């Protein structure tokens, strides 16, 4: 007789094994490692959140203390490899296989453990891809999640840092999985319910509040004149030109400069209300001046940001907010929003080649993909039109074909050299060498050149939509590659011709004098300025306070 309910039974067994550690659903911190050894099984797929920002740090520490003879060969399926403990799991032989998306803080450790043979890499995914696979072939057996608070029934409140959790837990809970949550406290009544208690099996109150890294805070004092120049060009040459109202900004100083130029430079250009109104964006503090100046209609966020809670609560017209008044984020929904419902993505990168392919991979660093490949990609499945999308689509073809597609604007904004004199424009991406070294099926490419519509450097804007041949594309890129070797090898005649066709536009072509790019144009010049703009509602983390 075929057993069609084996998963439910296996789950009941695990819960039974964990029962000796619980009162109701509550587990004591001292019993947590033992609990995990009881409910997790060797070879399990496990998601130890591992989000971009919030970390189930106590559960990570407890799991890393498990006996490798009891727990081994686990298959880690989580979006972020962030904490040292995430790497420890592999070093200790508790985990063996890895499927993930992003590894910022551990980007140097990943190549190291790969080389050591302690990690069997499944694949590096984008966020949406990994969440999607939770519902097809990478469903977690166990999810270790993190929330601000729980009630006795196991309902969870996550506040602004909801992030990945709903997607992770839904897949796990509805496919025979076990869900363990670490929380800061247990309360009688939650402000709101982010995860219903019947999806949660165990709750432990961690000794310390969970850690959240401030990832989206950029100090305006560090923005350079060259970044301001590139931002001015992006605003005048792209945002204004295409009428970009719906957009997503990757994180970085270049985009922070754009955000801080809206109330000043863009205001002078008469662009308020015409651009930058609807956002798929994390709560960047650098957008505060634009919000306060009335530029922004609404923002949906992938995650939250340290110090922004009170500001968002006071600006609930702008952010997605629960009935309790606190913001609610969703990595999955915001990634979808950025992919399908915006007309422009703009972000920075480490390397770009002559086709416009870009990568953040270097010889000793694998940071993964995160969300950029889906934000910075043309959405072929899109069907609803918008002005910018249609305009970009028309630029990509000649004449008026019967069947037309629009194009999402995918903009790479880079300085031709990084701080360490490393050129951003290269003939061959380091990623290709890395793929060879680690025998990867695919060289990790963050954004493919055929999705890129524009590249902005301090030297100008290259419009790749208007290029018709590979040679034009190459010279358009060389033509804005500044004094890098790639740039110095340009065909000067061809570049001049491309400039006549407006494929390359220099600052002067846009009516911008590079010497006017000055820090005084920034609506806020310091973290303190941002705080003042917010009426002191924004509470900058200590590491950013120099007053």
């Amino acid at each position, binding site marked *: 007789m075929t057993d069609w309910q084996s998963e439910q039974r296996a789950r009941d067994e695990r819960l039974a094994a964990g029962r000796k550690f619980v009162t109701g659903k509550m587990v004591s911190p001292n019993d947590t490692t033992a609990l995990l050894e009881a409910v997790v099984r060797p070879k399990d797929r496990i998601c130890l959140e591992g989000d971009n920002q919030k970390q189930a740090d106590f559960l990570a520490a407890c799991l890393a203390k498990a006996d490798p003879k009891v727990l081994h060969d686990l298959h880690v399926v989580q979006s972020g490899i962030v904490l040292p403990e995430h790497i420890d799991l592999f070093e200790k032989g508790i985990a063996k296989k890895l499927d993930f998306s992003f590894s910022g803080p551990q980007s140097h450790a990943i190549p190291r453990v790969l080389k050591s043979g302690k990690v069997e890499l499944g694949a590096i995914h984008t966020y949406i891809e990994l969440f999607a696979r939770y519902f097809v072939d990478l469903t977690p057996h166990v999810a270790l999640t993190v929330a601000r608070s729980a009630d006795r029934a196991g309902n969870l409140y996550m506040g602004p840092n909801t992030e990945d959790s709903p997607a992770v837990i839904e897949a796990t809970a509805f496919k025979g999985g076990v869900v363990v949550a670490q929380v800061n406290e247990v309360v009688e009544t939650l402000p709101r319910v982010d995860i219903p208690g019947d999806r949660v099996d165990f709750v432990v109150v961690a000794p310390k509040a969970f850690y959240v890294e401030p990832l989206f805070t950029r100090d305006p004092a560090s923005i350079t*004149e*060259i970044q301001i120049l590139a931002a001015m060009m992006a605003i005048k040459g792209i945002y204004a030109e295409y009428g970009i109202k719906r957009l997503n900004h990757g994180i970085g100083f270049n985009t922070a400069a754009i955000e801080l130029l809206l109330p000043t430079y863009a205001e002078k250009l008469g662009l308020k209300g015409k651009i930058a109104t609807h956002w798929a964006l994390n709560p960047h503090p650098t957008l505060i001046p634009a919000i306060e100046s009335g530029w922004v209609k609404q923002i949906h966020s992938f995650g939250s940001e340290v110090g922004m809670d009170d500001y968002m609560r006071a600006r609930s017209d702008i952010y997605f907010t629960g009935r309790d008044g606190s913001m609610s984020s969703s990595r999955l929904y915001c990634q979808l929003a950025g992919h399908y419902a915006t007309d422009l993505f703009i972000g920075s990168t480490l390397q770009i080649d002559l086709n416009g392919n870009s990568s953040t991979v270097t010889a000793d660093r694998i940071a993964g993909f995160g969300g950029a490949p889906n934000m910075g990609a043309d959405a072929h499945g899109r069907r609803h039109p918008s002005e910018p999308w249609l305009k970009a689509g028309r630029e990509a073809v000649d004449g008026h074909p019967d069947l037309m597609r629009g194009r999402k604007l995918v903009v790479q904004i880079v*300085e*031709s*050299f990084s*701080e360490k*004199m490393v050129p951003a424009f290269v003939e061959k991406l380091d990623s290709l060498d890395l793929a060879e070294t680690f025998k990867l099926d695919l060289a990790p490419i963050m954004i493919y050149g055929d999705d890129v519509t524009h590249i902005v450097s*301090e*030297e100008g804007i290259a419009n790749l939509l208007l290029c018709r041949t590979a040679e034009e594309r190459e010279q358009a890129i060389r033509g804005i590659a*500044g*004094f890098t070797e790639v740039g*110095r090898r340009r065909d000067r005649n061809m570049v001049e011709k491309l400039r006549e066709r407006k494929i390359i536009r220099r600052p002067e072509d846009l009516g911008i004098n*590079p*010497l006017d790019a000055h820090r005084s144009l920034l609506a806020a010049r310091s973290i303190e300025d941002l705080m003042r703009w917010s009426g002191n509602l924004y509470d900058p983390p200590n590491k950013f306070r120099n007053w």
Partner: protein
Amino acid sequence: METLKFRHTAERRLSGTKSQAIIGVVASGNLEVLLERVLPETMCEVEIATPLTGYGETWKAVVAEFVERSSPGGLRISINDGGARPDTVYLRLMQGSALMEAE
């Protein structure tokens, strides 16, 4: 430390009456540029002291581009480099010549 010197012929004299100007600071990623109006009208000299060796070709290209753009005839330009990127160097040279062109 590496010292580089470039001599160029400029199309015409840099306009303005300022006899000297200084811009920038010797700091990491930055540079200081001293401009002195002391040479014959169609001559331009650029002298660079830099702690980063091996970038001669890049300096040459930046200076050549600057001379073509600004025609800084009559200027002796002296640079103390703190390890600045080429685009920063170019920007400072342009800022410097703009200061010299002021009346």
